[in-house]
């Protein structure tokens, strides 16, 4: 068996345009990863990952648990240094404290006694990283009010954050991240602990907000189905390797089988996509590099 290529990018994706030649300019790139490799705790977590996102797009970072999604996001944020490769964010090399990148982390445990209202937590998005005390000002209050309104958090703006539901906390954290007007918003598994309805609401919110706030979104999830209606493209991670492009390009039997290194089947059922391991009883498809046994 020949050596598999680790780098699977599809035509157009690495240049920041999709295959149909859309109107986006190649220079309108907001995030580019080049050959990222990361090894942690004795494991090769990411292996030569490359992709590129254009401004204003909505991208899903899809992969099973343990595929390396959180690690990838942390590299983009500058929290982990890659073993090799690099990340370029909105025209400059990535560094910590990049105000162009907003972040909604995966698990925030907010105890009921945390003395912060939703409104206060959003306000921290403006200046929470600076030392000292913050002085209230009408301009600041207006900004906070606008952002709360944009995410639909006004009904519970004065409630303690520890008392909010998962979906409500999610909205507050999105507002927190967006209030500093970043160009790129990273969300780490925001839908993981939400029920189906709340998850759909968050996705709708993000799809609406992204063009409003002129922000590109990269959202990691292990199930791409809630995102199918709104995704512009997908970065698919398997075993630390990545394939990126539009959903049609990436989520195909051939592409994913190449990525996984063994046969998987992409099944579309009633508008949903399922990726299943190939079974021994599948019929042989001509021209298939991975014929079923």
């Amino acid at each position: 068996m020949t050596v598999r290529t680790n780098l699977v990018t599809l035509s157009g994706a690495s240049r920041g345009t999709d295959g149909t030649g859309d109107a986006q300019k190649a220079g309108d790139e907001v995030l580019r990863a080049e050959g990222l490799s990361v090894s942690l705790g004795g494991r090769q977590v990411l292996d030569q990952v490359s992709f590129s996102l254009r401004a204003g797009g909505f991208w899903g970072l899809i992969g099973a648990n343990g595929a390396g999604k959180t690690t990838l996001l942390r590299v983009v944020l500058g929290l982990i240094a890659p073993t090799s490769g690099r990340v370029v964010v909105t025209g400059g090399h990535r560094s910590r404290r990049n105000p162009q990148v907003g972040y909604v982390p995966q698990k925030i445990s907010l105890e009921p006694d945390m003395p912060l209202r939703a409104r206060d937590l959003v306000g921290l998005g403006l200046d929470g990283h600076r030392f000292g005390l913050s002085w209230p000002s009408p301009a600041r209050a207006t900004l906070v009010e606008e952002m709360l309104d944009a995410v639909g958090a006004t009904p519970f703006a004065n409630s303690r954050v520890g008392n909010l539901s998962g979906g409500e906390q999610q909205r507050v954290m999105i507002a927190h991240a967006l209030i500093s007007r970043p160009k790129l918003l990273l969300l780490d598994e925001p839908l993981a602990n939400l029920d189906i309805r709340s998850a759909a609401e968050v996705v709708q919110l993000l799809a609406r907000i992204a063009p409003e706030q002129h922000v590109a979104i990269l959202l990691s999830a292990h199930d791409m189905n809630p995102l199918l209606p709104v995704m512009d493209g997908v970065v698919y991670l398997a075993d630390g390797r990545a394939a990126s492009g539009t959903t049609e390009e990436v989520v195909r039997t051939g592409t994913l089988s190449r990525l996984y290194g063994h046969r998987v089947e992409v099944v579309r059922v009633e508008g949903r996509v399922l990726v299943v391991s190939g079974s021994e009883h599948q019929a042989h498809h001509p021209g298939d590099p991975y014929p079923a046994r």
Partner: protein
Amino acid sequence: MNVTGALLSPLFEPGFFSSGPVHVALVVGGVVAVVSGIVGVFTVIRGQSFAGHALADIGSAGGSAAVLVGVSTLYGYLALNVVAAAVMELIGIRRPRGRDLATGVVLGAALGLAALFLYEDTVSTSTTGATVNVLFGSIFTLPPGTTTLIALLGAVSIVAIAVLYRPLLLSSVSYDLAAARGVPVRLVGAGYLLTLALAVSLSAITIGAILSTALLIGPAAISLRVTTRTWAAVTVASGVGVFACWGGTLVAYDSSDWTGGWGWPVSFCIVAVIFVLYFAAGLVARLAPAGPGRRRSERAEPAGAQRVDAA
């Protein structure tokens, strides 16, 4: 005596306000209560109550070493607490269970040292009163001339918290988020631990290890039950601390007359006041939940981690 005096006299036994030691105790106790309340709020929300308590005991080990060496006990408390805080930060575990374990190990080692120092102490000076004094302390036996120094160090603590305020809050909400936004999270964490070490040293030496923890955690817990905003939490915690301190002192002073003979120790009275207020705050919180938010039990599904580490 006028009407007010007549009304108040059952509360304030004769001589309360004219007693010199009481004056000092009230002033120092007040300062310590304010500092403890402010630092305590952050201690509770960061889940570092054990560290706050451990540092009081660790400081006592430093105090007994100081007695041995003949240096002012305050320096002993400060020195060992700063070392302990540095060690805790260097061990650097972030999950609460692991962090409490590391705190426990440091505490165990320090108490072992305390055993050694106290033993040497009793052997060399043959006074066993030192044991009790170092461990329990008493607000009425403050070393003379330290009031100004304590007030100064207290002010330093408050300034430190004011400087760390925003990044500390942010990193308490989410360590990763704060780091991603460029907050020097390890520095902020270390700065906070050192401030805690300072605050606890001050309170442990003036009011003893028990009250140090009581005034650090109690008023903060009370305040967090009934306030919604950070500045309110901090202010109420300080106020409750001062009230508990002064009220407890008053009760202790009066108690010798109520119980005909032996009075109740100040520590017990202050702790009693704190507990009464804590349960009162619990009732208030249940009858009128702070802010228009719903309480946890009414939400559709739980957000974040369950509180499972009950023991």
